[in-house]
């Protein structure tokens, strides 16, 4: 490269949780070192920036590194620290990108059908620098609101946008604000629900880690709209990075005078406190969350009164999810019309999903409402790992259901998913394939909800326990005729009689798996067989004679001494000693261990 046409080169490294686990920090350090080593040596004239950015979504290909040279940007995937030297030499200095490490078609396919509003900034700005957010238009929403709009205007703008709560229930956000605004009271609160308890969802974490200021700005706008000067963020303690980033962002906003009194010279003031959750799923439920902020056991109470009327410390309170609030600044900046033009008639805008499980491209995706499940799983997700057969997709976590292959063409929006017995929920999307047992999945969720039931109301406390017991015996081969009907009856009772959303939705995984995969339940109960070969107690392991080479690998792997056989001779599994752990099945290179 010649001295004169040297441009600004930016190296962007993903440091979301995925990126960090894959060694994002080490990669940054390696780049810093390589560049400083070289730059001194050869006296290059270009400036290199190392930017830390939040989650870029495509965690399966971490660590992702962008090299931005002028207006050209190239992205490398799966980068390890030791690869930095070559990129610096060949690309930054030599001007020739290292082709074989660049992202490939899959990467483009992963992004083609997405529509990124929230995640766009998440993956490009440094979440630890308030200026990065300001540079992309951040805090202009609150500025606009304070200088040009009165609170009612803000509320009608949000109503017109059609935004609905992303925390699970899909309640219209503008309406919630309006009710709270109209409730009399001097003191009101805004709470950001960052409890994200659904195991298998991580969008709220990623938004806070990647773009914390958007959540702060959203809370401020909400505060202005409803007439509140106090906000709380209730965040899981299991998310240490997110907590750290959020705290940093809040303190930076304070230093700037964006939080505090008389914001932008107006007479509006706003302050945010961070409260750490203490590990209880039910605390994601709004009334339980309030109890927890007040320092009590996090138990829900009957509604009404709703928090908008009677919330934190008895004051009118708006509780919104992280993603909901993060949408607000973008709506204010770009207008309700723009937002409402995305999505379906009743579900507007985009939704962030955590696409995980048996799909090839796992990660965080943002799609317009109304996209089909098939597009998500096959076009974005790239299909099923090992090209096995798709079986179902679980949406909405413990409150949701499993959607089978026949329904892959339904649009993803609040109404359509509810119609097929599932929910959008917080946005977990776990893809299951032919090797997943649906009874086991139902049991898994019940184990979760049963453990997390707070115990206040009987239908949930005892009902989920009984459901779990029945599922447990079915997966152990002790299921009885009539168990399916018993599960259904019990489920409908629990749904009808439970106090809060936890119990009211806990049976959904059971009901939806019975609805679409009844024959699998029947196989467990009648034939004592697990068609997906997952339920341990229903399997038997044996050696397939014609494949066994007598290598002894299974014998060494067996923890219970159930396998016998001499070297180079046929081995045998003694079914009376076998504990069905599957160790032999996994180590055998010759596929000589069978199970059924």
């Amino acid at each position, binding site marked *: 490269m010649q001295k004169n046409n040297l441009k600004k080169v930016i190296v962007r490294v993903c440091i979301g*949780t*995925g990126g*960090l*686990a*894959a060694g994002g920090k080490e990669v940054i350090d390696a780049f810093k070192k390589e560049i400083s080593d070289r730059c001194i040596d050869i006296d290059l004239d270009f400036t290199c920036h190392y930017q830390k950015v939040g989650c870029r979504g495509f*965690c*399966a290909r*971490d660590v992702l590194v962008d090299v931005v040279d002028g207006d050209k940007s190239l992205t490398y995937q799966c980068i390890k620290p030791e690869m930095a030297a070559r990129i610096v030499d060949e690309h930054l200095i030599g001007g020739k990108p290292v082709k074989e490490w660049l992202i490939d078609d899959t990467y483009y396919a992963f992004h083609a059908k997405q529509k990124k509003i929230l995640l766009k900034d998440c993956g490009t700005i440094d979440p630890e620098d308030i200026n990065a957010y300001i540079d992309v238009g951040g805090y202009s929403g609150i500025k606009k609101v304070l200088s040009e709009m009165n609170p009612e205007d803000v509320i009608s703008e949000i109503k017109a946008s059609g935004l609905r709560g992303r925390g699970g229930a899909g309640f219209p956000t503008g309406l919630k604000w309006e009710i709270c605004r109209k409730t009399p009271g001097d003191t009101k609160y805004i709470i950001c629900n960052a409890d*994200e308890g*659904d*195991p*298998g*969802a*991580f969008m709220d*974490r*990623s938004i806070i880690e990647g773009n914390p200021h958007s959540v702060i700005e959203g809370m401020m706008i909400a505060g202005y709209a409803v007439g509140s000067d106090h906000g709380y963020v209730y965040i899981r*303690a*299991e*998310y*240490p990075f*997110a907590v750290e980033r959020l705290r940093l962002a809040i303190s930076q906003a304070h230093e700037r005078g964006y939080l505090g009194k008389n914001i932008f010279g107006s007479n509006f003031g706003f302050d945010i*406190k961070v*409260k*750490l*959750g*203490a*590990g*209880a*799923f039910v605390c994601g439920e709004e009334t339980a969350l309030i109890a*927890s*902020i*007040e*320092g*009590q*056991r*996090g138990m829900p109470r009957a509604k009404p009164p709703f928090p908008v009327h009677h919330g934190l410390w008895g004051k009118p309170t708006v509780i919104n999810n992280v993603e909901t609030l993060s949408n607000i600044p973008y709506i204010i900046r770009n207008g309700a019309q723009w937002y409402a033009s995305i999505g379906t008639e009743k579900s507007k805008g985009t939704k962030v999903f*955590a*696409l*995980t*499980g*048996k799909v090839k491209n*796992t*990660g*965080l995706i943002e799609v317009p409402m109304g996209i089909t499940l098939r597009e998500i799983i096959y076009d974005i997700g790239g299909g099923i790992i090992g090209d096995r057969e798709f079986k179902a997709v*679980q949406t909405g*976590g413990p409150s949701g259901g499993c959607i089978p292959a026949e329904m892959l063409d339904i649009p993803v929006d609040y109404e359509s998913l509810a119609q097929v017995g599932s929910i959008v929920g917080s946005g*977990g999307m*776990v893809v*299951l394939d032919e090797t*997943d047992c649906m009874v086991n*999945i139902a049991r*898994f*969720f019940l184990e*979760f909800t049963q453990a997390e039931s*707070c115990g206040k109301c009987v239908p949930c406390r005892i009902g989920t326990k009984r459901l779990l017991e029945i599922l447990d015996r079915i997966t152990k081969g002790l299921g009885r005729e009539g168990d399916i009907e018993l599960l259904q009856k019990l489920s409908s009772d629990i749904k009808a009689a439970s106090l809060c959303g936890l119990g009211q939705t806990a049976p959904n995984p059971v009901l939806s798996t019975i609805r679409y995969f009844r024959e699998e339940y029947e196989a467990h109960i009648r034939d004592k067989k697990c068609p997906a070969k997952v339920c341990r107690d229903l399997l038997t392991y044996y050696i397939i004679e014609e494949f066994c080479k007598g290598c002894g690998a299974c014998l060494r792997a067996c*923890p219970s001494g159930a396998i016998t056989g001499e070297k180079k001779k046929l081995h045998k599994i003694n079914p009376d000693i076998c504990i069905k*752990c599957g160790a032999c099945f*996994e180590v055998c290179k010759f596929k000589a261990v069978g199970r059924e």
Partner: protein
Amino acid sequence: MKTEGETVAAETAAILEGILKRYRDDDGNIISILQDVQDVFGYIREDAVNWFSKKLDIPASRFFGVVTFYAQFHLRPRGKNIVSVCCGTACHVKGGSKIAEQVKKELHLNSEGETTNDKRFTFEVVRCVGACSIAPVVLVNSKVYGDMTVDSTSKLIKKLKEGAGAKK
């Protein structure tokens, strides 16, 4: 029954005073007190609870009610390193339970929450740490290890035992 809250050593009392001050400056949330206590001591010490109970005139039972409600709190000391295996949905379908079995085996522990005799490792199960796209996941203290297999788990634990990546 022991009720005197003052029966803690002077230096402990100083720490507790600090926590109490923060609590008073904040809006009075005993969960924050307990989180601070656990941060300092690694678990919820009974004498600390009694001390606060006395100072604040809140029955100790309210504190213990909160402690036993939330999964985060521990009433017994834990090991210096916490090895947690994620058994959230994404990790479950990617074989998280096998990883958990392997960790138990390598650490010679029988069940969740147990600590090795040398007090170096405690094995725990967590339900989703938000790293689902690299499932199955193991956490050592707060470091995330993704895409684990039974083999890589064995190797990880062996390395930890030798001291790499773990507190002594």
